[in-house]
């Protein structure tokens, strides 16, 4: 039984990471109606920046904080320079552009920092809690705590601030937003900036466990997509819940289903995506289909 609880707990930890990246995906989808295939690679690239700062002697948390700022600015720049010009184009064009971004960030990281695995510092103390046979690390607890903080912060931002309201409005009805004086372009940039920062945080939190290398986020991306699909692409709460569910399911499947074992755990998100899209395409909490208007 303790073993089972252990697996669930570990699953929640991974799930928190997936949830963070899924939140980034949802943020971008809500503000610009784009599915950003490059989200994971952008996050990975930012994580490398954090690693670089740390290697240069910056303390871990300061490095992460600085990286979040850089990621925020970078996300805004990407929206303005790469996405804005193709905004009204066909879905296929936009898919190709985000795939192009994926390649740029993925290969770019490989070019700058090469493909050899690096060790990313653990920002949390190396402590292990043991409660009745169930062990969990400070890292795990820390990740879940950070996720909670993020969710609270985003909720406060969107529900209780003027700019959050403006972002919601711009996402829902750009035309009317312009009529009340909201600069819609700026809101979209903000959305991308926030999402990039979120992704960067997710990357920095997962890197100690996964080991840092350019392809690190490939699988996390798929899990995040599964989470967003399950929760509904326009539902932040859904993304969080979806992430946790996917994380736990993945871990349990990997532990208890012999065929899957550890190396085929990646089948889980694929099955989740297929199942959700066939049964209930809007996901658990989503309102709109992932179709360009």
């Amino acid at each position, binding site marked *: 039984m303790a073993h089972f609880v252990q697996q669930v707990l570990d699953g929640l930890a991974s799930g928190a990471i997936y949830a963070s990246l899924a939140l980034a995906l949802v943020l971008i989808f809500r503000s610009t109606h784009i*599915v950003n*295939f490059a989200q994971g690679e952008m996050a990975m690239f930012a994580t490398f920046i954090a690693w670089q700062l740390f290697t240069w002697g910056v303390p871990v948390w300061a490095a992460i904080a600085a990286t979040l700022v850089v990621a925020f600015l970078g996300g805004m720049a990407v929206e303005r320079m*790469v996405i804005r*010009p*193709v905004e009204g*184009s*066909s*879905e*296929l*064009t936009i*898919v*190709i*552009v985000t*795939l*192009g*971004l*994926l*390649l*740029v*960030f*993925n*290969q*770019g990281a*490989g*070019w700058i920092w*090469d493909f050899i695995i690096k060790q990313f510092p653990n920002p949390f103390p190396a402590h292990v809690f043991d409660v009745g046979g169930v062990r969990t690390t400070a890292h795990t607890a820390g990740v879940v705590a950070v996720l909670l903080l993020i969710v609270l912060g985003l909720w406060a931002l969107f529900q209780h601030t003027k700019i959050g309201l403006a972002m919601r409005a711009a996402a829902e009805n750009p035309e009317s937003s312009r009529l009340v004086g909201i600069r819609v372009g700026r809101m979209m940039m903000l959305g991308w900036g926030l999402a990039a920062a979120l992704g960067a945080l997710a990357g920095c939190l997962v890197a100690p466990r996964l080991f840092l290398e350019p392809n690190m986020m*490939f*699988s996390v991306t*798929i899990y995040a*997509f*599964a989470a967003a*699909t399950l929760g509904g692409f326009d539902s932040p709460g859904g993304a969080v819940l979806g992430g946790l569910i996917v994380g736990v399911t993945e871990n349990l499947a990997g532990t208890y289903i012999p065929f899957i074992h550890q*190396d*085929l755990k*990646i*089948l889980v*998100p*694929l099955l989740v*995506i*297929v199942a959700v*899209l*066939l049964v209930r*395409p809007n996901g658990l909490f989503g309102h709109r289909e*992932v*179709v*360009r208007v």
Partner: protein
Amino acid sequence: MSERRRVVLVEGTAKYRIAVAVVALVVLAIAIAIPYVMPPFRVFQFTEVLMIAIAVLGLNLLTGYNGQISLGHSAFFALGAYTTTVLIIDHGWNYVLTLPLAFAVAFAAGFLVGIPALRLHGLYLALVTLSLAIVTPPLIKRFEGVTGGAMGRSVPKPGAPGWTGLAQDQWHYFVVLAITAVMVLIARNLVSGRIGRALRAVRDDGLAAETMGVDLAIFKTLTFAYSAGFAGVAGGIFAFVVGFVSPESFTLVLAIGFLSAMVVGGLSSISGAVFGSLFYVFVPVYAADVNDALSGVIYGVALIVVMFLMPAGVVGVLRRVRGLVVDVRKPGAHGPTVAPPVVGRDLSEAAGVPATSSSAEL
């Protein structure tokens, strides 16, 4: 549109047919000349271009006619490659003969994926196929008894028969050129046949979908299956031309490569598949000349720039350029058609239906 004097060609007339034939002959002449004038490594690259073009041709069927986006054709490519590998190494088959089987295996897999794909459109399908592409390398590693796992397997490359007097790279090129020609014919037949007509009717008039009902479902699934089959053939070619298969050869990057090649070349056109494949093979090559590790970055940047400047692809640009000089008309029309058929062999031209614009309806 200015009243500039342009050469007028009416489809179906002798003048038109001659023009098309001349262009086709020129293209063919260039294609045949390549292995004689280029150094072996370049010839190998052109063989790669043809191989990729076959896969892109299949993807074109899917996107241009079904309106579906697939990010997972690397999976079918891999299936074809490993089928050929196993047949050649473990069962001693002749390499060319393995291709129909590679097609069949990929076709069957494509059919299975195509069934649920019916219910998914646009980005949903892209997501599912994306997962397929990401899952492929781990699956390959899991079934290492057959695939050789992470270590991969070496496939003996066929040598040129003595009577031809050709070097190995030249022989490979001609073999693949012949296969490409066959696949092009198959594609044209598909498009001008029942499937193509039905799908075009649906694409151009949604109401037709309602009336066609079940038949349509089968057509669309078959199209998916065919597109997978094409990728499988390309994969089989990969096995004996490159001579080595491993999980690293069949990653998401390859799937992105197919899709991007199709879009850069231009949708709904055979020549588009070739242009796109040229882009896919040679841009990283030239990028590597600049800086080896940067080639992936440059390819990604090139993709974005192409989408900014020419979203209709190379074919779109060529059509506009040609439109400055030549006015292609339907018989009986008094003005320019909406979008004249493209230089070379155009899928829709084969079917006698006006080509649509290059954006996919999704």
